């Protein structure tokens, strides 16, 4: 089992961690979730059929784990009569002190993009992260998400549109603040 782990770690750890981080936008949480990914992967490695590439298989497991996490959060929030809302979360994240160190050090445009990304729907975020941050092809992204390539393309298109809108809105907001 250790050899399998080491092999996967060397090949994919950096990508997996980065993907999880951008999905959940929290370093500590990404560290916890990446462990869960390996647990699931090591448990089911023997049943991996090779229908998809090892890489897309791992990403797909990681995405499910991130979604499971969001769902558990959603349930918890419901218990305290708070609804889970992406825009609300986006607003919270705008508080610059909550930006992860690596992001806070970047130029303003990158910081804004990071905030805008968190306002997109989970599907849109998944596509954008896989396509542009992880540089996967349309076909690979489709495999990870278990979607058709055309669904990847339309979701990507909508995500770009949404990001553009959020970026513009944020710029306007900032100009207003300056005045």
């Amino acid at each position, binding site marked *: 089992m250790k050899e399998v782990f*080491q092999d996967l*770690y060397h090949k994919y*750890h950096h990508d997996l961690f980065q993907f999880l981080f951008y999905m959940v936008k929290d370093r500590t949480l*990404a560290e916890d979730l990446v462990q869960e990914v390996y647990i699931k992967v090591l448990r089911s490695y023997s049943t991996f059929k090779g229908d998809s590439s090892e890489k897309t298989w791992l990403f797909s497991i990681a995405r499910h784990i991130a979604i499971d996490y969001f769902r558990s959060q959603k349930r918890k929030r*419901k218990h305290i009569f708070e609804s*889970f809302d*992406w825009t609300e979360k986006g607003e919270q994240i705008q508080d610059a002190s909550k930006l992860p160190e690596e992001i806070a050090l970047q130029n303003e445009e990158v910081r804004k993009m*990071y905030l805008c990304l968190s306002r997109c*729907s989970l*599907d849109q975020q998944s596509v954008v992260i896989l396509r542009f941050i992880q540089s996967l092809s349309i076909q690979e992204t489709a495999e990870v998400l278990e979607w058709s390539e055309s669904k990847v393309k339309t979701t990507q298109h909508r995500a770009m549109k949404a990001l553009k809108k959020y970026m513009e809105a944020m710029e306007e907001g900032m100009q207003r603040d300056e005045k």
Partner: protein
Amino acid sequence: MTKNNGNDDKIKSLLQNMPKMKDHQRMEELYTKIVKHMDEETEIKPKKKAYVPLFSLAAAVAFFAISITSVYLNQTKQETAEMNMDTGEERKEEAIYDAEIAEIPESSDEQYSIQSIPENNTIMEDTAHTLTYDKIKQDHTFLGLRLGMSYEEMIGVIGSPLEEDVNSNIARLKYSLDGYGVEATFDGENGPIREYTFYPQYLADGLFKALPKTKADAVSVFGEHYDNTVQTCPGNTSCNTYTYNIDSERYIQVQIVENKETVFAIRYGLKK
């Protein structure tokens, strides 16, 4: 157009320039944690789900243990003094109960997937035989499901799926590994459920037995009155879509694969 493309490129390059995130955990450290987790918990999710069957199994075992001991004790009661019996009875019950409990985790873990489904289905089957158009119309329920339920309430009715894919607008549930059998569409992000879609080819058991699988079944459940439109189903087959207007708010749609006369999907939802 060119302006749009320019903007897209700008967004793409911004995304591509997002900082690379590195995990601060060392490989060895991470491996140790993983092994520890794997040893500690047999698995987080099944553990949760296995809780209900495990509990009912334990309850059943306890019930048998108590009834057997009480029968046995009733027989021996005549032979022994009553005072001694009372304390003896308790001890025996405890001993048998403990012994049985200790055996459960092993078996229930392995049989989890087989066991838990029939468990849920026994509850499901009460409503299963009663899928009729009139019942949907009067009781406002479809296989026990109401429009406006929350995700959790729905799971309470149809049982936990084998796999689920839930996001803010739609939940897709697998009750067969072959494909998603149930879809629930939420009203707005994370709102109550406004529409259920059932794919009978991926729903064979329990509650879902009542779902019509052929055109003839569908007609016998929902009746002959329908508006028919032809639509394209996945895989480029054409589907006849029958729409039933239950009342001013609700509708049922049945999609039937044209050349096979099998039901592709059944939708129960609120009109827009």
